């Protein structure tokens, strides 16, 4: 196990420590550093050779000096896992933060995780009802999906994530989710908000929290989500739980990655983020899914704040290239006082097709969703035209669509933070709202559904 202590540090740079003349050290090995004042820090080997070892220190290198003792622990980073994790709050490095005892390990799991064999995966297809109309109707969430929230600072993404955590359920089933929550660099206030909400609803007893806050070590954020996902994998694939992983804020995670890259003097990719950030993020996001023959599942709900509200920024961009869609929060809608301010137009659930329809949600779902989307998109576009040529220049069809776009935001998007709409209610609401448009313009609705569900025919 732990080897001897070395005092051979040659260089310290940013979060990195360089040392020489060691025993053969494993790539990825865990390291403890003992400072002259007795403080213990932890790190991990990033580069190793006969002559030189590079260690990344999670707590930062403040006060590290040539007298710091470095011990190699003989193994890569592992998380002790057992069902005792459920109901616990741990810090960003996996130590108890709730005053409770150490986790008694049933096994120790490598936190890097192994890739699920694509041949062993099972395609997700179970509809999750979130009770939020915009999501259930237009960007339907599927159990086993990875669907991030693309938000920006000052927007209510946390409220939306919490509402989903509270309300998410399978239609006609009482199978419950347990929440694995992973905080990366968020403020204490935000964290308390999450915590007290989970406490209020009793979800905390069934949750595992990994918490790295804004004033906790930045480099530690590199491992926090890996710990959370390792716990999630254990609970899902060893213990049959359906796990909902919420992690926030991915932007802080990526910034920590950038910091390490800079300290290693790597050639940066776009906007200073490492060239391997796509692969790194994929190693997290791809840990969602379902495995054939296993009962549990991992659904991921990462939250990221887009710097400068810019969706082409590398963080949302690379995320979007990996996840199975995205839910985009709009500042404009938020400023109009609409909650949840979800802009359905750039939002997408790629797995939606596999989980909607007669057997799961309702036979008219696809048709309704397409029509709602199309009518809103056209209505929104007309707002731009109206600003130039005035409303009078619009023909009858365009006038109806323009009006509809307002109703869509006010009645369909807008709902209470505790308002839990069933999918049937959501779809009925869609029909009620769409009835303000003449059916001859509702070309995406199948005639047979109009006959069955249109308010004129329902009575």
């Amino acid at each position, binding site marked *: 196990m732990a080897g001897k202590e070395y005092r051979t540090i040659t260089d310290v740079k940013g979060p990195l420590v360089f040392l020489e003349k060691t025993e053969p050290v494993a790539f990825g090995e865990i390291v403890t550093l003992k400072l002259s004042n007795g403080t213990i820090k932890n790190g991990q080997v990033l580069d190793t050779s006969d002559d030189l070892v590079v260690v990344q220190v999670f707590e930062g290198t403040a006060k590290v000096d040539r007298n710091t003792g470095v011990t190699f622990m003989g193994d*890569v980073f592992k998380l002790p896992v057992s069902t005792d994790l459920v109901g616990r709050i741990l810090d960003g490095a996996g130590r108890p933060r709730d005053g409770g005892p150490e986790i008694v390990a049933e096994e120790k799991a490598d936190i890097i995780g192994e890739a699920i064999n*694509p041949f*062993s995966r099972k*395609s997700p297809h179970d509809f999750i009802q979130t009770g939020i109309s915009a999501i259930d109707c237009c960007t339907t969430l599927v159990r086993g999906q990875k669907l991030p929230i693309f938000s920006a600072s000052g927007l209510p993404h946390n409220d939306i994530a919490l509402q989903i955590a509270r309300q998410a359920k399978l239609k006609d089933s009482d199978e419950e989710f347990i929440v694995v929550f992973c905080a990366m660099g968020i403020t204490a206030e935000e964290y308390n908000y999450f915590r007290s909400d989970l406490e209020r609803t009793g979800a905390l007893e069934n949750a595992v929290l990994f918490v790295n806050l804004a004033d906790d070590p930045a480099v530690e954020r590199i491992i926090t989500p890996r710990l959370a996902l390792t716990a999630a994998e254990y609970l899902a694939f060893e213990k049959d739980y359906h796990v909902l992983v919420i992690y926030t804020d991915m932007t802080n995670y990526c910034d920590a990655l950038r910091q390490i890259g800079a300290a290693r003097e790597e050639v940066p990719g*776009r906007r200073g983020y490492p060239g391997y950030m796509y692969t790194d993020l994929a*190693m997290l996001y791809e840990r969602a899914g379902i495995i054939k023959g296993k009962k549990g599942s991992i659904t991921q709900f990462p939250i990221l704040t887009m710097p400068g509200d810019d969706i082409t920024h*590398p963080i949302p961009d690379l995320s979007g290239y990996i996840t199975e869609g995205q839910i985009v929060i709009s500042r404009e809608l938020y400023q109009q006082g609409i909650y949840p301010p979800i802009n359905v137009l750039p939002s997408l659930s790629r797995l939606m097709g596999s989980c909607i329809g007669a057997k799961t949600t309702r036979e008219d779902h696809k048709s309704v969703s397409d029509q709602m989307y199309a009518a809103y998109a056209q209505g929104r576009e007309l707002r731009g035209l109206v600003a130039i040529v005035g409303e009078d220049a619009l023909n009858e069809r365009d006038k109806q669509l323009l009006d509809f776009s307002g109703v869509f935001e006010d009645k369909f998007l807008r709902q209470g933070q505790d308002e839990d709409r069933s999918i049937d209610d959501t779809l009925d609401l869609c029909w009620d709202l769409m009835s303000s448009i003449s059916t001859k313009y509702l070309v995406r609705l199948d005639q047979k559904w109009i006959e069955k569900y249109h308010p004129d025919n329902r009575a």
Partner: protein
Amino acid sequence: MANEGKIYRISGPVVTAIGMEASMYDVVRVGDEGLMGEVIELHGEKAVIQVYEDTSGIRPGEPVINTKETLSVALGPGLLTQIYDGIQRPLPTLEAEMGYFIKRGLDADAFDMEKKWTFNPVASAGDAVQGGQVIGEVQETETIVHKIMIPPGVSGTIKSIESGDFNVTENIAVLEDGTEIQMLQKWPVRTPRPYTQKYAPDTPLITGMRILDFLFPLAKGGAAGIPGPFGSGKTVTQQSLAKFSDAQIVVYIGCGERGNEMTEVLDEFPHLIDPNTGKPLMNRTVMIANTSNMPVAAREASVYTGITIAEYFRDMGYDVALMADSTSRWAEAMREISSRLEEMPGEEGYPAYLSSRIAEFYERAGRVNSLGGDDGSVTVIGAVSPPGGDISEPVSQGTLRIVKVFWGLDAGLARQRHFPAINWLNSYSLYPPSLNQWYRDNIAQDFPEIRTEISTLLQIESELQEIVQLVGSDALPVDQQLTLEVARMIREYFLQQNGFHDVDASCEINLVYKMAKAILTFQTAAKAAMAAGAQLEDITGVPSRSTLMRGKFEASYVDDIEEMVATMVKEIEATVEDN
């Protein structure tokens, strides 16, 4: 120096060995667990190795053994229907050996080495044979006959050849000089397989997607790039091509993309029917899945593994189509390895050799006369994932410099749910001049002219749209309003094609032509009616026009369309009298 050395340094997927005799691209076994790697750089007595498996926990001082082989694929009966990782290990075998997660250090045969195949010779004792020549056949799947070829570089006179049931490592023939021939061959992945001659392409790869087959055709043996931002339809397009194109063999490479997308293909293909043979699609397919979270070095290798398999089937005389989703992830793997090597970076951190690697890869596409004398082709379709959707970046640019077809996916169209979201204004194909004769001979004499008319209408529309943005469409003269209406019909009826629709996901080429023709017929009839005093609204509102347009969702459309067009023309003529 010996064949065995020791690890000197480990930095992620890059390991340096010391004290080992090595040449470039030697395959080595790294560490106590024997992880597979490949020598990619030599510095004095140090050899730099990219390792195809995760290196955590490996230590300096552990052994490195040089196998003295180059990274190769196994070729022979058993390839079809397989799903491999980037270095040709079958994923089902990995699952059987180590469970649902991919662990490291496992060797696996590319296919069943024991399975007996019935070998039917087509050559006889006494025949002089040379590399590439077909000497026998094996019915590999229901639809594909696997031709057994003399390996390139081998020649002589057949001393004996046997028919019967053999596994791939048993001798099926012996040459006079004693050379033994088996069905199994190996070929180094980074070396293109030789052929006699490359031809200029003259036949389109029919894809079933109207916008591609009609406006921007790809030739068999050609190469196409599909760049587009996330969520714009690269994967759906590639999968449609894998399902519906008229290639005889499909090699599908999931290179650094999602696990679930590969699962979807695996779930779907065995149940989908190949439109060309009526048998399950899986029979003609080889899949390579090295997803984004699998080792990057193996991702780098995956495109070479794929294209070598494609060339092998080409050499049998087949038309092969290869899809690589996404070549950007391959380029990023190169970038990651290169930065670990501390090479001097080129643009955006990519290695300076990026564009030559891209060019070399696409150069392996082509229609050839094989060494055995058969004509075959490899068509390559590469997805590109430019950061932020901006194609001024090195991978897109390197691709566009070499491919002759550009299918540009557009975030705006995807957001409008106009699918396939291929931008008709900036996409292009340079093949029409070489393919027009084929279209004239096989579909219709006026096919190229109809194509020109349709694309001209789309150009005019985009100019008119700029005016409409300023003044609204009602302010335009009626003839221009008609043009807009016709263009709308082209977009919504003709170009839009839902990749998931039971019927319309694929459209046969004759029907493509008839639909294009129907639009022009509408235009002609409408112009005539308007000249005789009919109102545009009455003309566009004739019920038979929407019947015609909705008809594409019915399986019987190809038989009904002409009658529907005739009815529409009559109704349009009638709008003159009503007026």
